[in-house]
């Protein structure tokens, strides 16, 4: 299958290893990965901060770039959620019904990584090997916007060598929330503190999730505390093999 990678602006700029892992994983499974070079940002930060007008510019750009792709994958529940549930609404609210229709068509072909693997490619055991103690944080937008359910866990349970540890209060937000983390920094930090307490308490060496943004938040807190737990994106674990560990 020819799969277009929407890598997201955050991964592109700060976490290239997540995009590399996504591409490596899909290529290992026998698919061709394309990277439409014109891609930038889905506009979620603008939209969720109240800058709908600016967000529509980015929606139009995203649709222009991805319109010709057969299948689009993104290693982010949050950006995938924006494409699927926000783009057409933003376009319609701006009075651009034509753009809304095009955005709906792109949305219908856009999948978050675990959705693509389980629903489209029909695979749960991706042949990964990751000999570490891992706990999984289901990010809010994966869980409650895209409704990926237990797909990431089904993928993780098949990873050889890995010990999957339960995360108490897993479904509770880590406090990131985009610009919320800055605008309401004190509340955000209080939420993060509880999330970190559960992560460190789980005994995991690694906390994983399907969103680099939430992991940036959690990782930033763990790093500040000099906590031993590292953050690793789901794609990196699934891309890791005995021959090519990550």
């Amino acid at each position: 299958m020819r799969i277009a990678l929407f890598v997201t602006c955050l991964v592109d700029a700060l976490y290239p290893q997540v995009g590399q892992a996504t591409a490596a994983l899909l290529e290992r499974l026998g698919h061709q990965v394309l990277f439409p070079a014109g891609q930038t940002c889905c506009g979620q930060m603008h939209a969720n901060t109240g800058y709908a007008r600016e967000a529509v510019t980015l929606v139009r750009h995203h649709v222009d770039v991805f319109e010709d792709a057969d299948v689009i994958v993104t290693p982010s529940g949050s950006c995938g959620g924006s494409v699927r549930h926000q783009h057409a609404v933003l376009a319609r609210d701006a009075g651009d019904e034509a753009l809304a229709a095009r955005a709906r068509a792109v949305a219908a072909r856009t999948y978050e990584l675990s959705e693509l693997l389980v629903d489209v490619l029909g695979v749960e055991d991706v042949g990964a090997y990751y000999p570490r103690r891992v706990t999984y944080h289901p990010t809010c937008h994966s869980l409650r916007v895209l409704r990926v359910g237990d797909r990431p866990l089904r993928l993780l349970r098949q990873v050889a060598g890995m010990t999957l540890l339960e995360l108490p209060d897993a479904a509770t937000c880590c406090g990131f929330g985009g610009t919320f983390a800055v605008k309401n920094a004190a509340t955000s930090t209080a939420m993060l503190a509880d999330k970190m307490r559960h992560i460190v308490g789980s005994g995991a060496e690694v906390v994983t999730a399907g969103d680099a943004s939430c992991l940036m938040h959690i990782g930033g807190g763990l790093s500040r505390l000099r906590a031993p737990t590292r953050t690793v994106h789901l794609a990196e674990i699934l891309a890791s093999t005995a021959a090519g560990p990550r």
Partner: protein
Amino acid sequence: MSRVFLGVPAPPGVPAPTGVGQLRGTRPFPDAARDALADPQLRRNLAHATGVIRAKRAAAVAELDDWEALRLAGEAIKRATMASLDTHLVRLEAEVSARGGTVHWARDAREANAIVTGLVRSTGADEVVKVKSMATQEIGLNDALTAAGVTPVETDLAELIVQLGDDRPSHILVPAIHRNRAEIRDLFLREMPGVDPDLAAEPRALAMAARAHLRRTFLRARVAVSGANLAIAETGTLAVVESEGNGRMCLTLPETLITVMGIEKVLPRWSDLEVFLQLLPRSSTGERMNPYTSLWTGVTPGDGPRVFHLVLLDNGRTAALADRTGRDALHCIRCSACLNVCPVYERTGGHAYGSIYPGPIGAVLAPQLTGIHGTPDGDGGSLDFNGSLPFASSLCGACFDACPVRIDIPSLLVRLRAAAVDAARERALPTAEALTMAAAAQVMASPTRFAAAETAARLGGRLAGRRSGRLSALPWPLSAWTATRDAPRPPAQTFRQWWSHTHPDQP
């Protein structure tokens, strides 16, 4: 004929009133939240109480296999009702009047207070007993009654705690959720005349003390004031659901009953009760059915109050109904499930929201009812702190999942954020944030500009983080991030650089 008003009927061309009353705070949310977060006792009280209610609700909801169907039914009934609210309200007025009640229309909190105060004074009573009611909290009725020389007595235990402490409610269902039992015991010892000086800080002992305190008042009260959870247009029936029985006392013992109800509480049909009497208790107290459900229709000779007044309160609801965003927020049945699952509310408590409607739905309702452009009630300047409320959410979506009538609160918050930003855009000078967002959108609309910006940021970030490998101090506004969290050090190359090196054959 085109319909000019969907809510309270009014002559064409007359603008719908905006909400006034206890709907605004005196500080922006982040400031008020910071104080609440610094209070460890408050955080313990809230974490414990919301945790208990969350677990109860989850269990009560899980035992129904048609819960999602009930939510869909609740949403559908509310949506259909709102689409012709005016006709249901006129029908309600006709049915209540036909059964011996009197209906009053209040455009805003001031009018509602004037109506209720006038009605109480005309009875000659100098005291009223009150059923817990968000509508009367919204309009600040207790202050209005007190100013008119009438003593309001709250008879719901938690409302009594709030009243005795000269406090404000911090939760829709559990207004004294910010207090623990030891604090309540101390308050009773201080404020409740004749209370046992050895009063134990146990729920039962505290409830019995309140019961003894209230009993005398119930027996002498001539006027009661209530809210309403539901009203049925086709029969003119009002409903109050409660747990303590104090409501039943207020609704049956006094000669005169005055009910203040937000206009959005009306339902068309008696059969609609089937849906809402299942959704409400399971969502609010986590019970299959609440202990007391009182239904009354007008007045009945020899049974209950001899005089019944219904005050229909607009206070911004008609204006909200005209707005696509506001309309869905009016579906709220005040169950408070969204508060109990909200990670922000759990940590800040309700007072941080300023308005008497806290939590996720409050962050939507308060700015909707008052309007984001509005000026604060009273004499305080021109700052509108309700504009900060839609940002008091990480948009985690737990509220939407818990809402019994499926109000998409995160989407409403995002729309209100846009309204707040657009209001700010109308000022003479754009804010620093607006300039940053506009610049970022311009950069991100072009892959060339985006790649150039990435290079600049990466170099800066790598220089700043080259010793430790992490960024622990960034300039404003990102200093709010690095105060408690490290920022990642930018990588040696971006993904798109890596891709162009490793996939040179692809364009």
